């Protein structure tokens, strides 16, 4: 599937799925169960709002979700109490599959959710979203309900506040633009079409989740994209524009740690995909994206990093500075 085709057919906006009654009808016709997993670690300030909103809007008013679960990494604040008080099913990650042990990291919670939850589709939503809204769930699960061939739907957000020209940049985060997109441009060019590869919100079919490994730390989102892409191709992905997402901004030190974790995951994938030792010819094409209203197009730029040899190898230089011929 060509990137432009994929962008046209597999990129959605949450407003396309505003008719929740229609969506629930389609879900019931396909006999699907949908679980929401909110991984947490010390999120007492925001978790109550997320739980209340999803229970009210996507369980009581519109029964799209069959279960709403908080899987907690051992919060030391009142995250679990608040979530339970507002009606979520609350689990400690360490108590799920205890025989395999407990590893610290968000990926652990996501992985154990596959065991704990019942859904044919699991939707993961981070707990630190200040402007939480039902669209964060229905915008992601809808493509999976309506389109059988789509298996993994990522969120994207963050439009720039101002742009002067007709086209605006697609607006990934700092680690995306500085690390992940350049890496994908080099090794997995088609994956650059996923506008926000590191977003923490995605909905996935169980048949996929149960067949891919889960790094427990920063690399989980990157590894998913590579692993799903290698097994099912770009056409297995969808992505949905969820408008703005307001969340805590990470300090630069945290971004450094995140990048380090992602690099480890990435190189491990290169090794597993038999890239080691035979790195493919490095492409000089850097791929990024522009949006015009809701139409997205890729922009391919040739960035050739040419190199000059050490000056000392230049004969004129050697002559000028009286160096003997090499």
């Amino acid at each position, binding site marked *: 599937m060509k990137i432009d085709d994929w962008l046209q057919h597999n990129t959605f906006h949450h407003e396309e799925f505003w008719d929740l009654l229609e969506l629930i009808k389609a879900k019931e016709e396909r006999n699907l169960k949908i679980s929401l997993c909110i991984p947490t670690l010390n999120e007492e*300030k*925001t978790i*109550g*709002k997320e739980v*209340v*909103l999803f*229970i*009210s*809007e996507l369980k*009581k*008013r519109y029964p799209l979700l069959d279960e709403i679960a908080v899987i907690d990494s051992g919060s030391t604040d009142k995250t679990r109490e*608040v979530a339970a*008080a*507002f*009606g979520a099913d609350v689990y400690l990650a360490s108590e799920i599959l205890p025989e395999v042990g407990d590893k610290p990291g968000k990926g652990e919670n996501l992985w154990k959710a596959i065991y704990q939850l019942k859904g044919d589709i699991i939707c993961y939503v981070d707990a630190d979203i*200040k*402007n939480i*809204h039902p669209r964060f769930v229905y915008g992601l699960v809808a493509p999976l309900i309506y389109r059988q061939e789509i298996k993994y739907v990522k969120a994207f957000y963050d439009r720039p506040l101002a742009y002067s020209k007709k086209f605006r940049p697609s607006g990934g985060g700092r680690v995306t633009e500085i690390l992940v997109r350049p890496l994908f441009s080099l090794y997995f060019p088609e994956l650059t079409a996923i506008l926000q590869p590191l977003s923490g919100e995605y909905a996935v079919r169980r048949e996929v989740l149960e067949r891919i490994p889960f790094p427990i730390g920063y690399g989980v989102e990157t590894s998913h994209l590579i692993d799903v892409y290698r097994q099912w191709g770009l056409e297995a992905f969808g992505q949905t524009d969820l408008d703005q997402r*307001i969340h805590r901004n990470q300090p630069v030190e945290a971004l450094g740690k995140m990048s380090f974790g992602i690099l480890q995951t990435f190189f491990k994938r290169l090794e597993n995909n038999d890239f080691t030792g035979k790195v493919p010819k490095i492409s000089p094409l850097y791929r990024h994206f522009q949006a015009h209203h809701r139409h997205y197009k890729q922009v391919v730029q040739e960035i050739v990093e040419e190199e000059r040899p050490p000056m000392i190898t230049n004969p004129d230089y050697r002559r000028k500075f009286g160096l003997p011929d090499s």
Partner: protein
Amino acid sequence: MSLTLQTENIVETLPDIRQALRHYREIILASSVMMGEIPAPTNGEEERIRFLSDRFNESGLQNISIDEAGNATAVLPGQEGRHNILLEAHVDTVFDRSVDHSVALGTDVLKGPGIADNSIGAAAVSILPLMLEKLGIRFSNNIILLGAVQSQGHGDLGGIRFFLDHVQMPIHAGVCLAGIHLGRLSYSCLGMLRGEIVCQAPTETFWERSNARGAIVNLNEILTRILSISELDEPGTSLILGSIKAGNAFNTIPSQAILRFELRSEKRGKVTIVQRKIAEIIRAVAADSEAQTELRVITRRKPGGIKSNHPIVEGTRAIMAALGIEPTVAPSVGALSALIAKNIPGVTLGLTSGQNLHEFNEQIQIEPIFTGLAQLIGVLQMIDRGIERP
């Protein structure tokens, strides 16, 4: 058309209604959060009105519309539908669109700009039809739901006044909803004048040359004289000095100063007398200083209301008593005055307790909301049954 006091068989059910409402806590809280997170400055309420209108649609109401003023309206049809009872909440807030409108939900409180005034009120209007359906409560008469725009400041109750001027169904009684405070009972309104005093001085260069001191000094002179107006010392008349804007720096004499104020009085004619005196003071200071000064009247309302023994007032007191609410009688300067101006009997009620009104950390308590909503349902039932049938 008249009203009689009909609270039998209502007051005894109210504690059960309050308890039943707790089952819908998530819906009540989620609606309040979603309403509160949509910015709605006066004259910029479109998105919040669309949300409210969508909720009316989802509840299967009739005659859903957004009128020319921008109000959201809908009708919850009564079984007989002979009379019409208005339920109003204004949707606009005092906060600019650029303010972070995130609402924080704790175990006991909702916190965010505008949540008390009046996101919770607008949310209550949005969920009332659903709550009534869940509780199996039906009315004989039509309930007209109104999310009103342009209620604050310069809006001058533009939304509800437009609605009452143009509504095609006669309104027989009304209830206005305020977020805070639970126990509020308003059935009369004050005479009120909301205005600005603008002092305009020449530019800095001129003032430096003439050793004069600028617009702040002129405004101070006006203010000092206003505060000595004898009528302001009388009980029932008051002056609220709301805001002053002047100058930008330590070392630049400002050329403009603006004072915003609200003058209130329970006594007929008193606001006019004080307004005249303020105008005389402004003229005198202008003559002394050669500065340009101006009194701009933003809003003007006449005092009025229904009597304390009106069946709606007595019935509301009985309903409050049944729910253990201590009534606090206070005249209104809000939407109720628009009803009163049209001779429509009505009351303004509060929904919950709260703090930090009009601050960024405005907050409301969750637990009293259930009592506030039970009170609202009881008052609507009481009016519904008390309206004389032809």
